[in-house]
């Protein structure tokens, strides 16, 4: 039975992904910070799909603990999906130094450290798949969320490099860019329905993407084109737009 490690397993997206893999008969290792949430999520998956589910406590911002955490896993995963992220209020994060740091720590540094440790193991074993949830916000810096966006831009670049390095070693790396997602993180935002993916849609895209060894997955196809256009607007025009 194949095992998947889900980092940040309590997010809506991660829960949908876990459900998808459980239904496909994978065993699961769920890692997250909030213990009170992890327990019920694990029992839910066991009841639904009759697969082994383990839980471990994981804090993305505790970089020093990442190696120990990975080494402590009884079952080393065949695939890992990193879903954790932190989005603060842009008004707040603009001026709050601690919040800027947390945004970058969780979204970029935490991703880079844990995934580097896992990548080394996968490289040595000569197999494995890594998927991480980045964001269309990282495709171009925009005034509405450029701190979060820059951390995600860093993550996308990191994943691109990792993919490049591991492609010859039998390890696949996939970047996921969900676009708008209907989750806890966005429940108070008014989002355009046609551009907003449900956690289940994202889970399907991630599962199929990894099966087909996709490199970069936009969960809703329009987003690839929207971001292509946004990326190509000349800077002298772009800087005057409000996006």
């Amino acid at each position, binding site marked *: 039975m194949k095992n998947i490690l889900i980092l940040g397993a*309590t997010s809506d997206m991660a829960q949908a992904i876990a459900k998808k893999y459980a239904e496909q008969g994978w065993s699961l290792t769920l890692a997250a910070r*909030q213990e*009170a*949430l992890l327990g*019920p*999520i694990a*029992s*839910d998956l066991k*009841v*639904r799909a009759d697969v082994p589910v383990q839980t471990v406590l994981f804090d993305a911002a505790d970089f020093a603990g990442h190696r120990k955490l990975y080494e402590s896993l009884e079952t080393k995963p065949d695939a890992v999906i990193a879903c954790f992220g932190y989005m603060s209020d842009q008004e707040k994060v603009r001026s709050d130094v601690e919040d800027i740091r947390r945004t970058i720590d969780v979204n970029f540094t935490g991703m880079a450290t844990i995934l580097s440790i896992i990548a080394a193991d996968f490289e040595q074993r000569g197999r494995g798949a890594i998927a991480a949830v980045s964001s269309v916000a990282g495709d171009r810096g925009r005034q509405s969320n450029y701190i979060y966006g820059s951390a995600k831009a860093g993550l996308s670049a990191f994943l691109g490099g990792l993919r490049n390095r591991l492609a010859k070693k039998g390890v696949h790396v996939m970047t996921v860019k969900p676009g708008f997602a209907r989750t*806890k993180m966005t*429940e108070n935002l008014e989002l355009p329905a046609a551009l907003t993916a449900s956690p289940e849609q994202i889970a399907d895209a991630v599962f199929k993407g990894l099966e087909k060894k996709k490199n970069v997955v936009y969960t809703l196809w329009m987003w690839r084109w929207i971001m292509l256009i946004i990326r190509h607007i000349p800077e002298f025009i772009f800087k005057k737009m409000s996006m």
Partner: protein
Amino acid sequence: MRKISDWGNYPVIEAEVNGFDTAEQLKRQLEQPGEVIAFGNGRSYGDASLQDRILLTRRFSKFLSFDPATGELCCQAGVLLSEILDVFVPKGWFLPVTPGTKLITVGGAIASDVHGKNHHVDGSFGQHIRSMDVMRNDGSVITCSPTENAEFFKVTVGGMGLSGIILNASFRLRKIETAYIREETVRASNLDEIMDGFEASDDWTYSVAWIDCLAKGDALGRSILMRGEHAAETDLVEQAHRAKPLAVKKGLQLGVPVVFPNFALNPLSMKAFNFAYYNKTRPGTHKHIVDYNSFFYPLDAVDNWNRIYGRRGFTQYQFVIPKEAGREGMRKILTRITESGLGSFLAVLKLFGEQDSFMSFPMAGYTLALDFPISSKAMELFKELDAMVADYGGRLYLAKDSRMDAAMFEKTYPNANEFRQAIAMLNEGSTQFASLQSKRIGITG
């Protein structure tokens, strides 16, 4: 603040709406002063889950344990019945009781103590609850069952969310061999025929009738009786069904994409619908094998069907009257409804079995449910109907209600006063759980 309403889109209110993922988060929300009410999937019809401050339970929706030896399931209260069916029908299990929609939460099913087509055999949903955890006003969690903290259990089943917030519940699923129902439909040309039909269907697990509430005179009460049993494997005839007896193909999901203009439903269009529906079943008895979705949940196949009633919204008037008063009472009430010409096309008749719960709606007798677009004429009609229902010793279903007055409630729910005192006492003297409905009918201040 956001706009929110229950299924009838009447009333629509502005409320502060928050969800929770853990009991701890819920507790913190209860620490804030001010009245609150739990809101599940918004499928009660009126204002039973509406209030200035609303606690959404839908996120609190995990399965906690399942014992395949007994069928006992324990889950958090925000789980939808549809989620239970999706997971457990393929494993050979079904709900012990289900109402006509599967899009309700377990918490809502307990708080409204919902009933289904098998009420005369299996009672209401609450009667299947073996144990549950409820968070009280002060954030403490009480485990209750028919034997443990029985007083608390009694006021929580059918208690409309006023005793506390249901966190999780255990109940036993029913073993099934197939995902199909062996159904018989019988056409009844008037009220006497349909009532005879019900009485002759006592030994069927499921029975319900669709009734044409626009038909008058000799045709008053003409209906289609539907009765069913879970099909055994040997009942299945089609090869595709026999190959995968517990699998159900996803049917066509339709939707009502826009809110209809108010004039779309008029006496003519409704009469046409009722005529067509009645006549599509030929006289006599017909046998079919149908999947459980088409038998139990025909309307769930149409997303947002409530939108056909337009912006004014609608209410479902559902009452029960005791069996002794049944024939005469139903005839008088139905006559009054047909005279008014206000009823619409979804009218459902059912014969309940015995029930002696504290606050629940069912009683041994006939229940009729029918939809009315909101209008001042309809409101006047309801007043008249209320008086008739109360005279016959019946009552209205709180889960559907948005307009009953306190006097009517007091008259028809014999335990009203005791309930009022109990929910306060069991919450140490004061409770912050209250809904627009509980205030309107005078359960809470």
